[in-house]
């Protein structure tokens, strides 16, 4: 009935408009250096948004991703200082553990996702403060080994950009090409039907939160490479941007859709908008207004198909999705 466009279309158009608009207004936007710089800044948000998308796909919600990334960055920096390069694994591991806890609370104990992840948000901030000498940044004893990942050049881009792209592509293949991935989408689109065909719905939901936590942990690792330090008090507000990126990318808040590439483009759009406003000399405060407005606009776009079909069928049936 409605015209079928790929879910990533909206994000792609938004991305195009931002680059076209700022490119026409400001010099130096259409340079490879700027593109590489935006791509490098994008890495953290891209990972958080991809993880958030997994949680949204199973009708969940994770507002702890920013705090989890901050905790993971602190754990990774402490681990690296204590055990050498192997210690960096403490970051993703911390993220995975937080994700597992979220999954346990939501899928097994049936705590509402907002409450469960609000609890872990506060808990992660507490834990990060606890292990980092009251929230001080944990400086790496030898940052040169990892800052190369964020500021070096490999085929034109920072190595971390390629690594993040690789991780996100792996997620895309896993979701669209494996049985586990199909289960994830199916549980999100219709949990009842999924249970009837023998899928362990709670296990799949818990898995989605573990993916979300793991990706937040990887984002924490990227934060370490960018700052050369663990940042226990950082990444606040990124949870909102990750949700916005996923929604702009075509993720439905009522679950059942997992557009990985769209989410990546959505994150790219938000980061490009922020960078563009910054280049245009707009204050970060005003840029925040723009991002907030974009989030609401994204909600309009995301709900437009349902709204149109509702108007056509003359029904005013509407469900709110908390």
């Amino acid at each position, binding site marked *: 009935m409605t015209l079928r466009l790929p879910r990533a279309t909206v994000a792609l158009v938004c991305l195009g408009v931002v680059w076209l608009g700022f490119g026409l207004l400001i010099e130096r936007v259409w340079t490879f250096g700027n593109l590489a710089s935006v791509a490098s800044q994008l890495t953290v948000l891209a990972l958080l948004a991809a993880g958030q998308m997994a949680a949204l796909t199973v009708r969940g919600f994770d507002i702890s991703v920013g705090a989890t990334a901050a905790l993971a960055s602190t754990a990774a920096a402490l681990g690296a200082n204590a055990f050498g390069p192997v210690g960096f694994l403490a970051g993703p591991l911390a993220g995975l553990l937080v994700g597992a806890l979220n999954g346990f609370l939501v899928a097994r104990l049936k705590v509402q996702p907002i409450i469960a992840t609000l609890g872990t948000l506060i808990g992660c901030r*507490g834990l990060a*403060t*606890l292990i980092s000498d009251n929230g001080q940044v944990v400086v790496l004893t030898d940052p040169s080994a990892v800052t190369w990942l964020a500021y070096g050049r490999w085929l034109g881009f920072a190595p971390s950009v390629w690594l993040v792209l690789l991780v996100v592509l792996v997620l895309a293949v896993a979701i669209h090409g494996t049985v586990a991935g199909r289960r994830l989408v199916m549980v999100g689109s219709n949990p009842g039907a999924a249970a009837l065909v023998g899928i362990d719905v709670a296990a799949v939901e818990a898995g989605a939160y573990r993916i979300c936590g793991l990706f937040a942990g990887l984002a924490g690792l990227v934060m370490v490479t960018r700052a050369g330090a663990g940042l226990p008090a950082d990444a606040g507000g990124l949870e909102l941007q990750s949700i916005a990126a996923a929604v702009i990318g075509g993720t439905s808040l009522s679950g059942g859709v997992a557009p990985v590439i769209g989410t990546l483009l959505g994150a790219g759009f938000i980061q490009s908008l922020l960078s563009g406003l910054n280049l245009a000399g707009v204050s970060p405060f005003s840029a925040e*207004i*723009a991002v*907030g407005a*974009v989030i*609401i606009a*994204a909600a309009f776009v995301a709900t437009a198909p349902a709204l149109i079909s509702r108007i056509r069928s003359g029904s005013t049936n509407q469900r709110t999705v*908390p």
Partner: protein
Amino acid sequence: MTARLRRLPASLVVAAALFTLFALVVPRFGTPGNLENLARVAAILAIASCGQALVLVIGAIEFSFGSAVALASVVAVLVLPEAGPVAAFAAAFLTVVAISSLNGALVGYAALPPVVVTLGTLMVAHGAAATLAGGLPIDAAPSDVFRWPATGRIAGISVPVWLAAASLLVLAFLLSRSVLGRRLFLAGANPEAARLSGVRLARTRLAAYVLAGAFCGLAAIILTSRVGSGQPNLMPNLPFLTIAACAVGGIPLSGGRGTALEVLAGVAVVAMLNNATILLNYPPAVQLLLTAGVIVGAVLVQSDAVRRVFAGGRAR
């Protein structure tokens, strides 16, 4: 147990138990001075939570409180020199109501998801507050009238506590005695049934948000008066605290249920916990971990899954 007692929210028992425990264990917790301080701090949370509860009842949520109060404080301080304290407070109140009304219109009439809408307006309001204030707090000229909502007293009891009590009574009346309250519950429990029985969903949802804004606007007045300045980062965790208080009190985020008594119990638990960890001089990290544990724990204790275990496997 009698049926009447059984109808009391479980969270009220939790609150009473926590109070007894703290009174026995935490030094200075039970002193009149501390209890008054506790009540004054809890009052702001209680008033804002009344608003959050109304929105939760319709199955929606409100995040924009966090920066709505900040924008309100900045607006109040900017208006103050020209128009005086009363107009400043009115401006603060209307600022919050305007933001919540925008949320209500977007959630009600445009049927947008409440989470996304209110997170969006949260960012817009914070950006606006920081832009207006230039990123830094701006001081208000101190005056008795400006300080009164936070520090004044009526009959020996401080004004915020009176206002919190009034807010809870208004909420109790709205939820259990008014036609609007019935509509809110119906819209939250089963929107389709509500619509079929003649409830205008969009208008009802807008009403819930506007009233929520009114409660939060009152909280914003007290907060502004207390800090005596316009703060772009005034209480950013207010939405989380109010949601936590309501959830701890036993109001499900899925909508359709909620009472003023549950709000009171939830606020009491959250506020007492904060107060006790400060009195015990725990480091901030431990305070955060304890808060996280209590929020999740209190919700868990009231969850069906855990109740079933205690009820010996009986299905509810």
